[in-house]
């Protein structure tokens, strides 16, 4: 029996654990410092989006999208996924030209999921959108899911596959043993394993440092607003071509407004704080695009802490200083949709040393230059 330790009980850690535990001959332990889904995994906006991805992320995102279409087969729950589509609106002719160029770029790579639609179609998709919107870039079949429900479904599925999940176990050291295995140390126990995954999110660089590896990566704390419940007016998840916005109406009728507006973040105390003047900016954008939310009341606001790399795409690959340790972090605020496929890729890397899944762009070697 081979042993694996996954550091971090967020969506990526749990997905990695799930896929690895389903491979014959693997005994998997997840070590989570606090509790499962404590940071951005449990509180993100839940966007399940191929639309507008960094070109290097599209291939993995497309694989993941297929997995989202059949979540019950993967984890026994639909995770609240509703394929209402993702729409990025153009607020000017210049915006529309930008979106057309983008669609062309994606098509040239062989992908067809991004589609430019005209004024009439955008109104059919978004009857409540403001009159100045002239068109949009659309991915039908994208949508959104319930982040906490997703995390809990992955947790349950991983456990059913035989993985052990230990909460309240913060890793303090990773060492190589005399026999060549890795030893992962927590205050209460040590875990010996052939393979270790670093899925520690905003704290993953600290874990990498335990292995003597410096990977440049910052943190972010994207802020979110949720309004009171409103009558149903919007099915898709909405973004804007030239402004920072993510906007969706949940199943219960509340409207969740985000878009990467940053709060204050303190990795030491593991807390982040909402900055209301910046949040006001997000609310203003939302109200300009959907006049019907201008009168709604804001019920809650929150932030979630996440790792952000310099080029805003993740780090996935084996450690250069400690073979046997595999990194998967730095999803930079858009890792939720990638969870299912990235976990499969990392599990294959850990079990076989290679994967056919398209993760080549994510090597940390890109920072070496």
């Amino acid at each position: 029996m081979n042993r694996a330790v996954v550091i971090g009980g967020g969506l990526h850690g749990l997905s990695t654990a799930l896929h690895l535990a389903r491979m014959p001959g693997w005994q998997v332990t997840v070590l989570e410092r606090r509790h499962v889904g404590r940071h951005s995994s449990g509180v993100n906006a839940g966007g399940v989006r191929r639309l507008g991805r960094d070109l290097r992320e599209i291939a993995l995102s497309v694989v993941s999208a297929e997995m989202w279409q059949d979540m019950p087969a993967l984890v026994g729950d639909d995770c609240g996924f509703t394929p209402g589509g993702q729409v990025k609106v153009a607020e000017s002719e210049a915006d529309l030209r930008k979106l057309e160029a983008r669609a062309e770029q994606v098509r040239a790579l062989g992908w067809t999921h991004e589609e430019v639609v005209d004024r009439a179609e955008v109104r059919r998709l978004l009857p409540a959108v403001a009159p100045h919107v002239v068109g949009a870039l659309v991915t039908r079949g994208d949508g959104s899911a319930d982040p906490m429900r997703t995390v809990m479904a992955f947790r349950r599925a991983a456990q059913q596959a035989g993985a052990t999940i230990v909460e309240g176990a913060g890793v303090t050291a990773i060492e190589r043993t005399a026999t060549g295995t890795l030893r992962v140390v927590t205050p209460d126990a040590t875990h010996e394993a052939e393979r270790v995954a670093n899925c520690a999110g905003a704290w993953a660089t600290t874990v990498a440092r335990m292995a003597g590896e410096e990977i440049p990566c910052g943190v972010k704390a994207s802020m979110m607003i949720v309004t009171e419940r409103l009558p149903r007016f919007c099915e898709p998840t909405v973004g804007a071509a030239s402004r920072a916005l993510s906007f969706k109406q949940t199943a219960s009728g509340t409207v969740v407004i985000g878009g990467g507006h940053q709060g204050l973040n303190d990795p030491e105390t593991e807390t982040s704080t909402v900055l209301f003047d910046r949040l006001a900016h997000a609310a203003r954008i939302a109200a300009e695009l959907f006049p019907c939310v201008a009168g709604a009341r804001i019920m809650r606001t929150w932030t979630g802490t996440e790792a952000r790399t310099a080029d805003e795409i993740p780090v996935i690959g084996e450690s250069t200083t400690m073979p046997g340790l595999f990194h998967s972090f730095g999803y930079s605020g858009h890792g939720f949709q990638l969870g299912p496929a990235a976990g499969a890729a990392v599990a294959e890397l850990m079990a076989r040393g290679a994967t056919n899944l398209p993760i080549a762009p994510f090597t940390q070697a890109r920072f070496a230059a």
Partner: protein
Amino acid sequence: MRVAVVGAGPAGVRAVEQLLRAGIEPAWIEEAPDGGGRIYQRPPPGFARSHRALYGADAKRAQALHATLDALKPRTDWRPETLVWNIRPRDGVLDVVTRGTRPGEIRFDALILCTGAMDRIVPVPGWTMPGVTTLGGAQIALKAQGAAIGARPVFVGTGPLLWLAALQYAKAGASPALVLDTTSFLTKLLATPGLLWNTPTFLRGLRYTAALRARGVTIAEDATPLAIEGEGKVAALRWRDSGWREHVAPCDAVALGWGLKPEAQLADLAGVPFRFDAAQHNWVPERDAAGRSPVPGVYLAGDGAGIGGAEVAEHAGARAALALLEDHGRSVDLALRGHLDGRLRTEARFRAALERAFPFPAHLARRMADATILCRCESVTAGELREAARLGAPEVNRAKALSRVGMGRCQGRVCGPPAAEVLSEALGIPVEQAGRLRGQPPVKPLPMPMVAP
């Protein structure tokens, strides 16, 4: 020194009075259009009912407080209809919104929070139906709007407000169908010696009960509400008496309430730690007898600092202001300080007896049926919360993340205490270990026009 006082109820009025005596003109922030607090809430301009009609035996106190309030307002930076929705303690800033649209900031060096209390509820099947309100809500409807919640209302709960609200309705012309007290007469009787610490209030309580009986109102003690029934609106209360016989009381409205809980979200945001007060069965912000919180510059008074009632609030408000003045190097009236300390000590003994006389029926919350809606804002049932416990939620904030309990409009102000009971029962732990929902800004829903003009 910039001092801000939040709240213009009995505690706020007496705090501001002492500050002005010392020559400090505070910023004075009140969420309602006028001061007086919930207990001495004033009707809107144009309503002409006498203090006697509005406040009964408390008319003199109400009149005195209103007179002081009106005299003080022009001497302060008076901000009515202003909600403090966030506190940034490190910057000494209150984030406010006035009349639902105008945003602002108020800077402070010291802060007195007199944020009052709200009804404490145990969900009963059917409690989300139109026609159901809280005892406090029923009373405010009568006092501030001259409106009754129904012609044949039922009053359910325990505590002095149960009897007072029922009697006020009877006097106003309604015919209460039933007053259902979940506490037994024996429990109340056993607390009698302690209640004599405040004899006038104690006697008044007895008078209310007698007056209701004299008017022919059905009174049930040691009884259990089972369900509020009706098609789309309240038609009856099904209940069980102390001998386990079931009854149905036809009615057109229900008012519920089991004592009060502090409205302490602002203390939470100011960084004040909380402790579970077993006698009150409430989480209360920590403070010393004078009202100093462990956070320098933050003072607490009135029901928001632990339930004590209006008289205590007046004394505590004045006392907290004196503490603030002393801590900032001002000399204070030592005779007054001594008097207040004495009164607060006596009243604390009375309050302790009152809590024994009218205990929170935690068992009703803990035995709530799985199908009963616990969190009405998010439509979360007791069963769904128990499921969160099975998923491993060790306390209410985790249970909130898993079940959405407390995520809605009220931010858990209504469902938080019963949720903690349900969770603690499901986990087999004491209720204080189930914790309390942490306060988050905005403490109340914030109008979007304010942030997105």
